[in-house]
């Protein structure tokens, strides 16, 4: 039991389950399946962008990627345009989305490294450029996703939403990368002390570069899936994922100071974040109260998690 409570991700799951129970109780148990499926679907998008952000935050203080929303928008927009509602182009569309991610990742790190701009400014400026590109390509037309892709993202396998399965596969890959490979060790080492990492023979710049690219690619894949899921790309489709990607990392128990990351926690936090909103909806709160309560709940969770860490 102590071994279990020592895991930082346990708390985000406990919070998610608690909110789920409260919500289901309110509706007398009738909503449990529907609520669970909706939660898994929407949490899946947060998980995918959250994992990318987690890798970047693990690199240590100051590392963050604020271009996530713009990346999602541009990759969704471009991919749908290329696919042009044809089922045969689905794979090509995914490739385009990934390439968009790679390009943005390279751009981010080029700004950080060549112009010596802090990541927070570099990725923010990058996101303006990317967002403008998205506006320019979008030009008011709303293209539908290919039907097969749209069906895939909105349907279920064995009762579990397909997008959640995709997120699960990506999470397992991320967990493997972090825990079992030299790359995982490297980013954790850099997050603890980049000078020590350099003197231990780690290619610090190469590793950071790959990490920023990885984050942008995951955001791009999330954009591709989200655009297909919601029947078309919209210019503001990524907006809520800026704070979401950071919040799920923090609530999930990843150290904001870097060096220590945590994949399961991303899931607990993503489920929790969506459930809080649905709970407040179920209870019939208005939009304003809902936002305030969401903020307060997030603060409470972070405080609870932080206090525990100090006590150890």
């Amino acid at each position: 039991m102590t071994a279990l409570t020592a895991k930082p991700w346990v708390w985000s799951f406990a919070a998610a389950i608690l909110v789920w129970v409260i919500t289901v109780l309110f509706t007398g148990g009738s909503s449990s399946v529907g609520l669970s499926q909706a939660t898994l679907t929407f949490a899946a998008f947060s998980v995918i962008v959250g994992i990318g952000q987690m890798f970047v935050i693990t690199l240590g203080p100051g590392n963050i990627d604020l271009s996530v929303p713009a990346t999602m928008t541009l990759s969704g927009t471009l991919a749908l345009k290329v696919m042009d509602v044809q089922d045969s182009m689905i794979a090509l569309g995914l490739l385009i989305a990934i390439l968009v991610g790679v390009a943005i990742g390279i751009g981010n790190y080029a700004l950080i490294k060549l112009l010596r701009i802090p990541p927070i400014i570099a990725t923010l400026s990058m996101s303006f450029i990317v967002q403008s590109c998205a506006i320019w390509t979008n030009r008011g037309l709303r293209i539908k996703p290919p039907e097969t892709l749209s069906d895939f993202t909105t349907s279920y396998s064995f009762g579990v939403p397909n997008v959640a399965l995709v997120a699960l596969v990506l999470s397992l890959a991320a967990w493997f990368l972090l825990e079992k490979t030299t790359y995982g060790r490297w980013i954790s080492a850099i997050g603890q002390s980049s000078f020590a990492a350099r003197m231990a023979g780690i290619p610090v710049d190469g590793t950071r570069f790959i990490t920023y690219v990885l984050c942008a690619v995951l955001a791009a894949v999330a954009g591709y899936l989200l655009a297909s899921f919601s029947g078309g790309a919209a210019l503001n489709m990524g907006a809520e994922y800026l704070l979401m990607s950071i919040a799920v990392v923090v609530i999930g128990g990843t150290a904001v100071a870097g060096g220590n990351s945590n994949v399961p926690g991303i899931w607990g936090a993503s489920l929790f974040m969506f459930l809080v909103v649905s709970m407040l909806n179920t209870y019939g709160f208005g939009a304003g109260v809902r936002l305030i309560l969401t903020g307060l709940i997030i603060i409470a969770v972070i405080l609870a998690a932080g206090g525990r860490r100090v006590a150890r």
Partner: protein
Amino acid sequence: MNDRVPKQEVVAARDVKVAFGAVKALDGATLVIQSGECVGLVGHNGAGKSTIVNVINGGLTPQEGAITYGGASADQGITAARASGVRCVFQELSLCPNLTIAENARVMLSDLKGAGWRRRGLALVTRQLAEIFPGHSIDCESVVEDLTIAERQMVEIAISFAAVDARPKLVILDEPTSSLDAGLAAQLMAYVRRFVETGGSVLLISHILGEILSTSDRIVVMKDGKVVADRPAVDFNTRRLVETMGSVVREQGWQRSARTKTGAPVLSVPPLPGASIRLEAFSGEIIGLAGLGGHGQTEALLDLYLAANGNWWPAAEPKMAFVAGDRGLNGTFSLWSILKNLSISSLKGLSNRSVIDTDREKKVSESWRKRIEIRTPDMHNPILSLSGGNQQKVLFARALATTAKIVLMDDPMRGVDVGTKQEVYEILRAEAASGRTFIWYSTEMDEIRLCDRVYVFRDGAIAAELVGDDITEAGVLAASFAGGEAA
């Protein structure tokens, strides 16, 4: 020596027991310090020296035993200790790097307050530095992070001895000379004697036994959390001290590798502008970088390393490995276990296509634990659970576990006990015999004497090259000062 004047008890820790989990750090140790004496405290890494210091300065409350300040059983804790005039210079330097020297003085000296404390603090530290280290070159208005590690140590020592309202009664010096060169260390020891003769007390912890023997009135030897000897310093000499600590003195059986330099150098660095000597290294050599502390030796090592190891692409075959001296700055990964800290530089050999083979990793780290005697029950314990000297051993093992042919060492033996040093020297010799090259910056003359060839640094460049029998303390000192003002 102790019976001439009735001495007053400054602090006493009697029958103190402290345990961290299953580890007994102190097992019934007694340490009484009287006014006007310098007590030397020696023992191996992990003998309990730092723990008893923490008990005395109030940072640690013992599970059993009593602490009294000034003979009276009064309050305990850090505040009580400070109120009784106990000050401590820690082994791990504890100045705040982002503050100026005067601001650090304000942090450490609570009675430095009221209007104009900056000015008074500056004057205080300036005066004290000049008194302890006459002729030093520290700019007292600078921010601490601009100082070298030796200068930081000097500043911390000066602040600890400084008196605002009341003079400190007891100053605890934990490895005070670890970053200082011989000249500065001698100045400090002379000051300690003056301080003691005017009625103050000093508790001196050092692995440099010569200092302990020449400076202390009384020597306390600790082993496994107990005090095993407490006698006047005149009863000891180096051999007896080392034997009391529990290790056998080994004769200086070091043979310089007699082989002549053959083949092409494995390393050759053109001289800096304004200097004329190239830094060259041949296979199997142990090369010393000597000179006064902070004259560019560390920078030279960093330059060598950074030039050889790419920052973008993992090296197929690492050319060099680095052993840090300033562990907190560029050595340990503090969130990690001992195991991960040890294996980080050799992951390539421990993995298949970037996937780490954890069994092999465990086996290799276990073999290093035995070879270099890292004192821990489990390599999965956090690195910070180890004492400073043992952390240093982990960093050594990290470098030696790589396949690199050249190992750079940035004064890595700081705070390492005599027995461990001997063990590490043995390993160095064996590794050099099998063709590895070591480039070793050391502030200790005993270590410089072990080298095959020595480059003496002055003002950031190589001033002289000494070979074989020319490597003597006199030779190194002469080259360190030649041409310049003796600092």
